[in-house]
């Protein structure tokens, strides 16, 4: 059968995360800093709303675009949080997570050979989604000197006449990078100048620290008409398994996405949509509690990593830190495998998120503090031994 698989799918590399997952899964008693989802349970009032929805027997399809009530609530939420307004009837589509939204948006926009720009290190699905749509992914490396923010000059050098779409994700998985207003304005100006369409994945926008503001490119002058704003309830509301994302953008684009969505997915599950209504309407206090807890853990983990001599910048968003492990003299993969074998601590090697991730490790702090603490003390021991070259042969 292998020779019958479509070539562009056959040639797609497996996710680096997948390989690592299989090794970790085979081991026992592992403390995992490799988990890209909240450790909190979905707040009870949201779970209760989902149960109530089932009790009432709401188990059918919904409109392809999503429940009208949910779209109305999304419109209000987005206006309050991102300062840009969308009509619930025509400019909002509810999807099965932001992942589906990215896929159908790229499929709706990209002709074969069109180039899609994105910043790396980044979430694992961006490049494959472009390839699956027969587009050409063009990575723009971000650097630790810029705290992994996207530099306008770096973007400018990669724009060609075939460039069509720019994919953004701030706060960023895996680096925790954020963009301040001045930086984002420069990116917006380039998008206008080169007529780029922007897909902005802002799934971590509520999880911000130090009182920093969230800057959405969609709200900048001249951007609304060329931007698709993606968000969802997975991260902030701890609802990953509910699979609810949404896209807000110009009517023509939402209509085109809807065509792909209706044939591939039909609609997002109704129970989850009704839970999302409850989350967006009444979830703010729970979100704030979780955010505060993440902030304390962030302080803890960043300070511990820096104390081990692993240079780590203090991220202002998401629940990831991206320590630089180069100083140990090991590659990311060797470091991560060694850490797993020697100390039973799992953290994802940076290159799983693109080549510029080499020399780094992604550590998620969506894990209870006592576990983080234990992981940090094991990691300190490991780094000390690694510096003495004790793992040079063993890995």
């Amino acid at each position, binding site marked *: 059968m292998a020779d019958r698989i479509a070539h562009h799918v056959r040639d797609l590399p497996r996710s680096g995360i997948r390989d690592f997952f299989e090794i970790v899964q085979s081991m026992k008693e592992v403390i995992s800093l490799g988990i890209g989802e909240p450790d909190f349970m979905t707040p009870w009032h949201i779970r209760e709303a989902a149960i109530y929805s089932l009790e009432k027997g709401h188990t059918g399809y919904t409109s392809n675009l999503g429940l009208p009530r949910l779209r109305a609530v999304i419109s209000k939420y987005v206006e309050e949080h991102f300062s840009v307004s969308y009509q619930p009837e025509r400019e909002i589509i509810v999807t099965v997570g932001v992942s589906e939204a990215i896929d159908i948006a790229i499929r709706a926009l990209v002709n074969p050979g069109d180039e899609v720009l994105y910043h790396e290190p980044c979430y694992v699905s961006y490049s494959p989604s472009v390839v699956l749509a027969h587009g050409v992914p063009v990575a723009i490396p971000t650097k630790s000197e810029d705290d992994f923010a996207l530099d306008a000059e770096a973007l400018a050098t990669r724009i060609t006449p075939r460039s069509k779409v720019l994919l953004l994700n701030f706060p960023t998985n895996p680096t925790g990078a954020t963009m301040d207003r001045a930086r984002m304005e420069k990116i917006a100006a380039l998008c206008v100048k080169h007529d780029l369409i922007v897909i902005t994945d802002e799934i971590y926008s509520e999880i911000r620290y130090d009182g920093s503001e969230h800057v959405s490119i969609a709200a900048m002058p001249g951007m609304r008409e060329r931007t698709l704003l993606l968000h969802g309830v997975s991260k902030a509301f701890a609802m990953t398994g509910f699979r609810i994302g949404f896209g807000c953008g110009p009517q023509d684009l939402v209509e085109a996405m809807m065509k792909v969505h209706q044939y591939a997915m039909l609609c997002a599950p109704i129970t989850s949509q009704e839970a999302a209504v409850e989350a967006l309407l009444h979830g703010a206090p729970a979100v704030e509690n979780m955010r*505060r807890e993440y902030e304390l853990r962030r302080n803890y983990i960043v300070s511990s990593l820096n104390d081990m001599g692993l240079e780590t910048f203090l991220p202002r968003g998401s629940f990831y830190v991206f320590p630089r492990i180069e100083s140990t003299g090991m590659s990311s993969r060797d470091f991560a495998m060694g850490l797993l074998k020697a100390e039973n601590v799992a953290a994802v090697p940076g290159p799983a998120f693109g080549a510029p991730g080499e020399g780094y490790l992604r550590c998620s702090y969506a894990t209870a503090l006592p576990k983080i603490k234990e992981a940090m003390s094991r990691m300190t021991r490991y780094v000390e031994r690694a510096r003495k070259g004790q793992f040079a042969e063993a890995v």
Partner: protein
Amino acid sequence: MDPLLQILRQNALIPRPDLARMLGLSEAETSAQIAAAEADGKILGYQAVLDPEKTGNGSVTAVIEVKITPERGGGFDRLAQRIARFDEVESCYLMSGGYDLLVVVTGESLRQVASFVAERLSTVEGVLSTATHFRLKCYKENGTLLAREEEPNRLVVSP
């Protein structure tokens, strides 16, 4: 609430070095802040949250609705403080609504609590009436659910 107080409220036993790291402060600064909160009376004390079913702690607990006569000048305060001073009284609140004080009383036996109400509480001058409700079962104590929720099974590594 102050993040320091928030953390201590959840776990008063958290080691100082951890607390300092979480707050981004030095250990000395953290200790100074705790000492200040204690001196200000923001922190009143530190207690373990016990499961009454397993420990027999306050094996009989009652909440008592108490109606009292307010006094000229002092309102309810003098009488409420007088009631609150009894060792049997765990908590005492002034309430809005159909009664004045809500008093939580614990004791070793039903008889002990009943005799406290009959002989001590009801006889305090100014107490007009009491209505005593005994606790049957505890589901949540000080923000902690007694039936622990299972940890959800998360994938060990996810994107």
